[in-house]
């Protein structure tokens, strides 16, 4: 496809309690087949979607956080996480799961997909995107 657009999926909500996070991830997985330039943004309570050690046994809902680790296989290489949102919630990068992708331009070396960026940089990422889908 000649006209590749920059898609940015903005995740603002906690992983459980509402269905937005799960249904957002479903869009990302389907969208991956369209060979667009895909980025994900995590801010506000959305940063909880990427935290380690999620256990949903007590709420009768599927823990879908392992699916984020598969995003690299879908050629999703950019997961932006807002630093201020982490800090406001007492979290740091160490609390987040590891997501890697294989860089085809660098001998398929595994590289981290999660990039912690500032609120100002997040604004730039949004301004830079062609299509912003906010969940």
């Amino acid at each position, binding site marked *: 496809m000649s*006209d590749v657009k920059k898609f940015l999926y903005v995740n603002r909500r906690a992983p459980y309690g509402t269905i937005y996070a799960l249904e957002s991830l479903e869009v990302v997985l389907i969208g991956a087949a369209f060979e667009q330039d895909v980025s994900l943004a995590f801010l506000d309570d959305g940063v909880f979607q990427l935290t380690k050690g999620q256990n949903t046994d007590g709420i009768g809902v599927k823990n879908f956080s392992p699916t984020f680790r598969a995003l690299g296989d879908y050629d999703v290489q950019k997961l932006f996480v807002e630093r201020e949102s982490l800090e406001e919630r007492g979290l740091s990068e160490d609390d987040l799961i590891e997501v890697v992708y294989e860089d085809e331009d660098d001998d398929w070396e595994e590289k981290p997909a999660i990039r912690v960026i500032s609120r100002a940089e997040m604004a730039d990422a949004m301004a830079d995107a062609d299509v912003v889908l906010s969940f």
Partner: protein
Amino acid sequence: MKIGVLVSEGPYTHQAVDSAYKFVTAAIAAGHEVPRVFFYHDGVNVATRLSVPPQDERNIQQNWTALAKEHNVDLVVCIAAAQRRGMLDANEAERQGKDANNIAEGFRISGLGQLIEMGIQTDRLVTFGD
């Protein structure tokens, strides 16, 4: 300009679907093209033809159906979100062994690929949600 619209909140509970309707109407009146509206999350509930609001209230489904007919707008309901919420067309009802279907005229059930395609093919994608 070609504008795609995403509706992601349910009817009567939330303003989003009403705002989307007014936006699409105004955009078309201003000469823009709105080829498709995609309904996701609880937005899929707009498409039930079994909704019976009080007579002195707006009928959201019927308004969309009329708009689609008049201006040839493709109203697409996400199949995955629809199935979770009991929204089935005749084909899906038969496939899933259900005894009823409820999708109103003017709406069609299809996959999330239609949302991505809309993002690729339009100049702007406007989301109405929370």
